[in-house]
């Protein structure tokens, strides 16, 4: 039983860590801030969420588990909002997406060519 | 012989004037100038009290009385009654009585007459305390008190700049001298362990043997010379004539200026009769005598003439005291007595003339004898005494002092010549003051002169009469006053035989005749003499009086330069200097104590732990190199984050918990604040200053690391933490030891801490909410200046 838990925990940790790593990699490799947000707010959140759950599993304790889940839910609530606010702010401040971004529906709303 | 202990009435006698000072203003408000009559009773009573000591003292008895004042520091309020102190006490209270009366008439109708009275009384009390003082500290206290009161009296007419200047001058010179005296006294106390004058006098060689004789002597002389206006400190005294005449008559002729002489005489048994003493005193005294008389001749203002002769007389007294020669000392005592009487009288005469005729310029005065007969008589008597003519006490004094100087081994001649010249010139002044205004054709003055009221006449008449009486009763004078005083000076019971008429033709008599002759001769040539001296002074063009102003403005200018240098006003400079000292503090002691740590071995951190360190370092670098404040703020988050991880990795969850919160909130608040700030994006630092500040920074970090490392290499006493661990749950019911420490074991710290938090909140509120007032115009000016500066 303990052994199984250990294995599961280990796997979750590794996978979570890899997701986190991917997120940071995306942060480096992706071209503009908007794309980087994708990496951070998704892979990152999933990764750390997984690892938190790993701790919950490892604890084998309802209290811990429930708390961990509550935590994860909390991240799932906050992460997108953070990303959204930042993207909105960046765009409103005038930061342009990279050149590859062909379609920009917001362009004419925020900066109408008058 | 040991002094007899007497009851406290003498102490009360010293305090009486202070009481009078308290009531004086009220009394004056009721009785106007006639309050003088009532107030004069106080010094009169004091006079009679001390008169009671004359006979026993003349039999060689001495008395002490004491009240504990600050016993833990051995300070008593104590008096020592012997010949010297009795004589002075009588002069102070006696002359004081008539000064009070005189002041009553002189400042009649003056709005602050009451205040004037109380200043006078304050001074009187201080002076009594000084001359009777037995305890060195209390003596000094009264000494300084005389300086302070004289400051107030000189500046009494404070709206005039001259008065203010004179007052400051007197305060600086005499007060400054007082500091020397204090140092001297404290040295005496720590050298001898004695604090009472009487006990010191009981063993006269105690100071000379202490090995500190030289510094003590110099320091005491520093006090005495400044107080008694010895050259080159004489300049403040004539300026002090800015004070109303009663003050000049009382403080600056009869009493205060003699405090220095008193001190020299008092300490003669302790400090005198040494080569040093017999060199310094005669030298300075002699110079002062000559300079004083010459300057006096140069003057035309009655008061100034008298003032300079006072300087001269003080010089003469110091010179005589400096001989440590019994006969000369006897002369000094006699002259002291004589001078107080005639000078007091003459000052009051001068004041009366000024008061009645409206001028003190001797050249504008003449033929007043018919208008002011009584004053005239008093003036003559006093003047003759000053001129040293028989049958006045002044004559007797001169005889004896010539006798003394003539007999003072090899330097006797020089001294005698000095004395003769001085006395001759003094005679000139005496004549000029006492005779010139009254004889000759009547010169009309702006006020039509006529005899002054009783209050103004009483003083001069009585004092000059006393001068005559003491001369006629020379023998009694000798027995009652001179002998006992001399005993105090030589430190053993001495009797003198003073007589008015010389028994045989001897050196002193001849010298007197020479003096008189020269004097009269000079008097006829007064105007030419005056012109010559004036010319000489013009050629010199500088005097200590001018020097004083240069000293004051000099020290002020210097201080303002120094202050601008050390308090430059630039925050960055402040920081740099401060941190230079921090660097020194953390490096130097370690170097001196050689407490550097042993070479540490590489710690066995795990891979990810190194990772955390790397992040921390990167975070720090990020803050350093960040071009803009925004980057800097974000980077600030990194190192804070790393610190939190470090706490976690070393088993401090609460810390990393708090650190995470606090760090993020700091960043948040920074962001909130920064939303409004537009700041320079760059940290402008020239390479030079970057290197310089960098070195300071590194030295601070290095020093602290080394110290910390050295400490952590030592074994550690975990007693406290063991205790907390032991009882955290067992007694304090908490499993989180850190939290238990915070709320229980060391809860009081936390109470203070939350006080800080609450106050911080309030501070920020006060900062943000209170609107800044539109600043004053000069602030505007400064603002623009600082803008130019920037």
């Amino acid at each position: 039983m303990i052994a199984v838990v250990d294995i599961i925990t280990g796997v979750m940790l590794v996978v979570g860590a890899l997701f986190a790593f991917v997120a940071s990699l995306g942060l480096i490799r992706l071209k503009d801030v908007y794309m980087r947000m994708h990496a951070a707010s998704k892979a990152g959140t999933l990764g750390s969420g997984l690892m938190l759950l790993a701790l919950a599993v490892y604890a084998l304790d309802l209290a811990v588990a429930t708390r961990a889940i509550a935590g994860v839910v909390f991240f799932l609530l906050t992460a997108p909002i953070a990303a959204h606010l930042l993207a909105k702010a960046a765009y409103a401040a005038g930061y342009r997406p990279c050149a590859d971004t062909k379609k920009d529906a917001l362009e004419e709303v925020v900066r109408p060519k008058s | 012989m040991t002094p007899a202990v007497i009851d406290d009435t003498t102490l009360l006698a010293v305090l009486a004037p202070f009481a009078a000072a308290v009531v004086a203003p009220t009394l004056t408000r009721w009785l106007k100038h006639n309050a003088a009559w009532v107030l004069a009773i106080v010094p009169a009573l004091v006079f009679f009290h001390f008169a009671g000591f004359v006979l026993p003292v003349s039999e060689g008895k001495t008395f002490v009385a004491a009240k504990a004042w600050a016993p833990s520091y051995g300070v008593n309020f104590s008096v020592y009654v012997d010949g010297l102190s009795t004589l002075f006490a009588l002069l102070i209270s006696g002359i004081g009585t008539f000064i009070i009366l005189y002041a009553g008439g002189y400042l009649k109708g003056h709005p602050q007459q009451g205040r004037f009275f109380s200043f006078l009384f304050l001074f009187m009390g201080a002076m009594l305390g000084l001359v009777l003082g037995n305890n060195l500290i209390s003596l000094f206290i009264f000494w300084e008190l005389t300086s302070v009161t004289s400051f107030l009296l000189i500046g009494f007419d404070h709206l005039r700049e001259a008065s203010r200047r004179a007052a400051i001058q007197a305060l600086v010179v005499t007060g400054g001298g007082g500091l020397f005296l204090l140092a001297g006294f404290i040295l005496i106390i720590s050298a001898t362990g004695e604090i009472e004058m009487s006990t010191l006098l009981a063993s006269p060689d105690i100071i000379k043997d202490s090995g500190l004789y030289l510094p003590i002597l110099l320091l005491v002389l520093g006090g005495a010379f400044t107080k008694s206006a010895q050259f080159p400190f004489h300049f403040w005294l004539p300026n002090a004539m800015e004070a109303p005449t009663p003050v000049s008559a009382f403080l600056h002729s009869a009493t205060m200026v003699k405090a220095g002489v008193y001190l020299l005489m008092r300490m003669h048994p302790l400090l005198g009769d040494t080569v040093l003493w017999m060199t310094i005193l005669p030298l300075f005294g002699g110079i002062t005598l000559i300079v004083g008389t010459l300057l006096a001749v140069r003057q035309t203002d009655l008061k100034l003439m008298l003032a300079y002769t006072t300087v001269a007389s003080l010089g003469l007294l110091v010179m005589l005291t400096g001989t440590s020669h019994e006969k000369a000392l006897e002369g000094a005592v006699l002259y002291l007595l004589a001078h107080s009487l005639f000078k007091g009288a003459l000052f009051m005469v001068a004041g009366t003339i000024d008061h009645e005729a409206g001028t003190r310029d001797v050249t504008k005065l003449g033929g007043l004898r018919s208008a002011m007969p009584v004053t005239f008589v008093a003036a003559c008597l006093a003047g003759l005494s000053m001129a040293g003519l028989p049958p006045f006490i002044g004559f007797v004094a001169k005889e004896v002092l010539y006798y003394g100087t003539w007999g003072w081994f090899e330097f006797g001649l020089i001294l005698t010549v000095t004395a003769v010249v001085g006395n001759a010139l003094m005679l000139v002044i005496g004549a000029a003051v006492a005779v010139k205004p009254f004889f000759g054709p009547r010169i009309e003055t702006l006020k039509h002169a006529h005899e002054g009221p009783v209050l103004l006449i009483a003083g001069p008449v009585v004092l000059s009469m006393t001068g005559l009486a003491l001369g006629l009763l020379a023998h009694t004078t000798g027995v009652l006053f001179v002998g006992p005083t001399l005993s105090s000076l030589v430190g053993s019971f001495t009797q003198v035989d003073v007589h008015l008429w010389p028994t045989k033709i001897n050196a002193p008599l001849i010298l007197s005749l020479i003096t008189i002759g020269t004097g009269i001769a000079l008097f006829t040539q007064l105007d030419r003499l005056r012109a010559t001296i004036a010319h000489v002074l013009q050629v010199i063009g500088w005097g200590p009086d001018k020097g004083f102003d240069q000293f004051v403005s000099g020290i002020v200018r210097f201080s303002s330069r120094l202050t601008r240098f050390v308090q430059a006003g630039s925050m960055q400079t402040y920081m740099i200097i401060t941190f230079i000292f921090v660097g020194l503090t953390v490096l130097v002691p370690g170097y001196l104590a050689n407490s550097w740590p042993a070479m540490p071995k590489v710690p066995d951190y795990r891979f990810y732990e190194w990772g955390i360190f790397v992040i921390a370092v990167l975070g720090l670098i990020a803050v350093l190199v960040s071009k803009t404040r925004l980057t800097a703020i974000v980077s600030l988050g990194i190192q804070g984050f790393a610190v939190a991880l470090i706490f976690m990795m070393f088993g401090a969850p609460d810390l990393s918990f708090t650190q995470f919160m606090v760090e993020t909130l700091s960043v948040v608040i920074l962001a909130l604040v920064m939303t409004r700030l537009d700041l320079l994006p760059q940290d402008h630092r020239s390479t030079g200053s970057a290197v310089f500040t960098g070195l300071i920074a590194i030295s601070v970090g290095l020093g602290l690391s080394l110290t910390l490392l050295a400490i952590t290499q030592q074994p550690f006493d975990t007693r406290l933490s063991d205790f907390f661990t032991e009882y955290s749950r067992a007694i304090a019911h908490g499993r989180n030891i850190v939290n238990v420490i915070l709320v229980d074991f060391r809860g009081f710290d936390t109470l203070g801490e939350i006080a800080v938090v609450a106050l911080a909140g309030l501070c920020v509120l006060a900062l943000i909410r209170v609107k800044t007032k539109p600043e004053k115009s000069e602030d505007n000016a400064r603002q623009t200046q600082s803008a130019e500066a920037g």
Partner: protein
Amino acid sequence: MRTIIFRTIAPYLSALMVLFSVFVLLRGHNEPGGGFIGGLIAASALAIFGIACGVASVRRAIVFHPMAISAFGLFIGALAGIPSFFFSQTFMTSQWLIFHLGDVEVALSTPLVFDIGVYLVVVGSISSIALALEEREAD
């Protein structure tokens, strides 16, 4: 930040955080946490609330002026040390009142009161600072 998305969700987040902060406060004596951290969490909650829905609504929500709350915290923090006076013990000697409600054991103690004081002080002061700064931006 006038955006529907944020404004809609923020109040619930704040409520959640306040709840959580109380939890952190109460368990502080036995697990990491305590008044200070709890206070900080609550303060951040209010800050988010303020950023999303405006300072005015926060001020209305907490009824009292934050500094008054902070002062009250300080007040009871100091008071918590006094009961020992009546048992002729020294200042801040902890007093415990332990009783059982159902299956859980409830421990009321002066340290707990003290910790609550800490909590209130931190909430009050920090949120006061945050709100004051917010307001400046609003205007």
